């Protein structure tokens, strides 16, 4: 990736983060989790996935499914920046006149499958990847999982099945932001060693810094078809990335800021002074 390509991605990501913050008011959204996977989604749609606004229904397109659906503001932000979705529609967040709410749904172009309840879309991805295999297609299926979502037993059921069915066109990306809703993952249900767990299930495992575009490029470029094994990319990320006053804070998972706070946070995103936040935080035990 050359310097200007990198700057392009960074510019898109900045805009995506602005979109996320602008959706974090008038009812709010899952701001922290959205900020953690913003770079992953910008990278995947810009550099890896073979899908564009023009090829949303193409039989040979690549798929992305957001299993941790509460970070959909990041995906909608990416869609708005890459021409999948009219950016004006983001202003309809939580309005009954549109379909932009806290979890993804197929009424929005580019959403391949809806989600909300955790632990569902790995198995749906297995079905899609299997159908692609049956039709001898070359499409790839990427499913984004939360690290907290790995608590769900269905993830591990799916890991067994994807290995048994040799789904080498399936790539799970774990947004390893080290937090689940209210608490650090390792303080509640320790997940480490994640890499060893997936290896033991027969998966091809890669680790990467989920905010480093060059590293992401290198990692995903090393993915090869036809290995006979599903792949998981464990992407280390930071919840609330890009906005220091809400980063890595258990009480800033779901955020509903005032308009003034949103403007301050966008300033913070652009390197200005820390926001002075007074709106309610989540209660954390």
């Amino acid at each position, binding site marked *: 990736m050359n310097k200007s390509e990198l700057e392009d991605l960074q510019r898109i990501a900045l805009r995506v983060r602005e979109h996320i913050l602008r959706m974090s008011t008038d009812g709010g959204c899952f701001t922290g989790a959205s900020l953690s996977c913003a770079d992953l989604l910008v990278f995947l749609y810009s550099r890896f996935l073979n899908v564009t606004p023009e090829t949303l229904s193409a039989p040979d397109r690549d798929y992305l499914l957001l299993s941790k659906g509460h970070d959909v503001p990041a995906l909608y932000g990416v869609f708005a920046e890459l021409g999948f979705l009219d950016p004006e529609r983001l202003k309809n967040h939580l309005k009954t006149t549109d379909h932009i709410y806290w979890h993804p749904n197929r009424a929005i172009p580019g959403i391949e499958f*809806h989600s909300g309840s955790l632990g569902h879309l790995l*198995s749906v991805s297995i*079905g899609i*990847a*299997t159908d692609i295999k049956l039709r001898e297609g070359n499409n790839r299926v990427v499913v984004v999982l939360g690290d907290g979502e790995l608590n769900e037993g*269905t993830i591990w*059921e799916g890991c067994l099945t994807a290995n048994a069915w040799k789904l080498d066109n399936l790539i799970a990306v774990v947004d390893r932001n080290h937090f689940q809703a209210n608490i650090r993952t390792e303080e509640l249900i320790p997940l480490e060693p994640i890499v060893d767990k997936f290896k033991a299930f027969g998966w091809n495992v890669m680790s990467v810094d989920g905010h480093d575009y060059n590293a992401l490029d290198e990692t995903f470029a090393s993915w090869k078809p036809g290995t006979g094994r599903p792949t998981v990319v464990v992407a280390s990320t930071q919840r609330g990335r890009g906005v220091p006053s809400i980063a890595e804070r258990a009480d800033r998972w779901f955020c509903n800021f005032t308009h003034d706070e949103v403007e301050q946070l966008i300033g913070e995103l652009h390197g200005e002074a820390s926001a002075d936040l007074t709106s309610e935080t989540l209660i954390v035990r």
Partner: protein
Amino acid sequence: MNRYEELLLDLVNTDERIIILTAENRGHMRTIPAHLGKRFMDVGIAEQTMIGAAAGLAVRGRIVLTHALASFVTLRPFEFIRDDVGIPNLSVIMVGMVPGFLSDGNGPTHQAVDDVGLMRGIPNVGVFCPADEDDFIIGMRDIILSERPFYVRYINTPACVEHDKNFSIGKAEIVKGQGMGQRDITILTYGLLLKQSMQAAEILESHGLSVQVVNMRTLKPIDTEVLLNAAAESSLVVTVEDHFKNGGLYSILAETVLDNQTPCRALAIALEERWFRPALLADVLEYEGFTGEQIAVRIQRALELQPKDSYAELRLS
């Protein structure tokens, strides 16, 4: 190869969309995998993954038939059926083996006696409960090709009546007393208890009572016309089902007559707030009061208990 397997093989061979999945429940389809090649897949003992994968296949244009025990295909993956099949209205069929009393001696964990209530409660998901193997084979092709989600109570018992080969989703089959008009009793039933209901009807007829018997076939969509006709033209409407009273046919009847403001006298012959005593089928029927004779007596008693003298009756007993 049994008739179910023959039907599936024919459908798979003539329609490239069809895929068969199981969660290692291969009862009644043990010989077919070898003939289906890649269009048959077994996820292992993982019902949630089975339904999720079925949804993924269906969103790519497949029609997916999932096959497992009735209790396991409805309960463990309930949320997957609701979220991943029901919400997007995908063409996934859940075929449940040994539903209701057919689970014999397995015990309450295996008793699908809440399945109709659960499945019909999910928007978009239909419910087909054939009476016997003939009825199952007659209806199953339409169900599979309906391109909508369906839950099916699998049954392979020998036919107890000559079934109408004209099958239509949402249309009941009147197996006795078609076009009868005003009558003493209408028995509404589904599944294996059609046989006992027919036996009960014959006993009641021998006592001079007029009886219509209806095989509901699909419980969702329901044949509202048949239900309302039963309410309007019978002294007593009886629902017979190997299901909890709550959520099944009796509930459907109650909802239907209330919706239409046409109340009727009704008797539920069902399981009331309890699972059934596990044993071989014939003994279960006897123990739980579901033989033809027992059903007839229960109906007769209800019929004799007229509302006007019901209190006197209660005092005497």
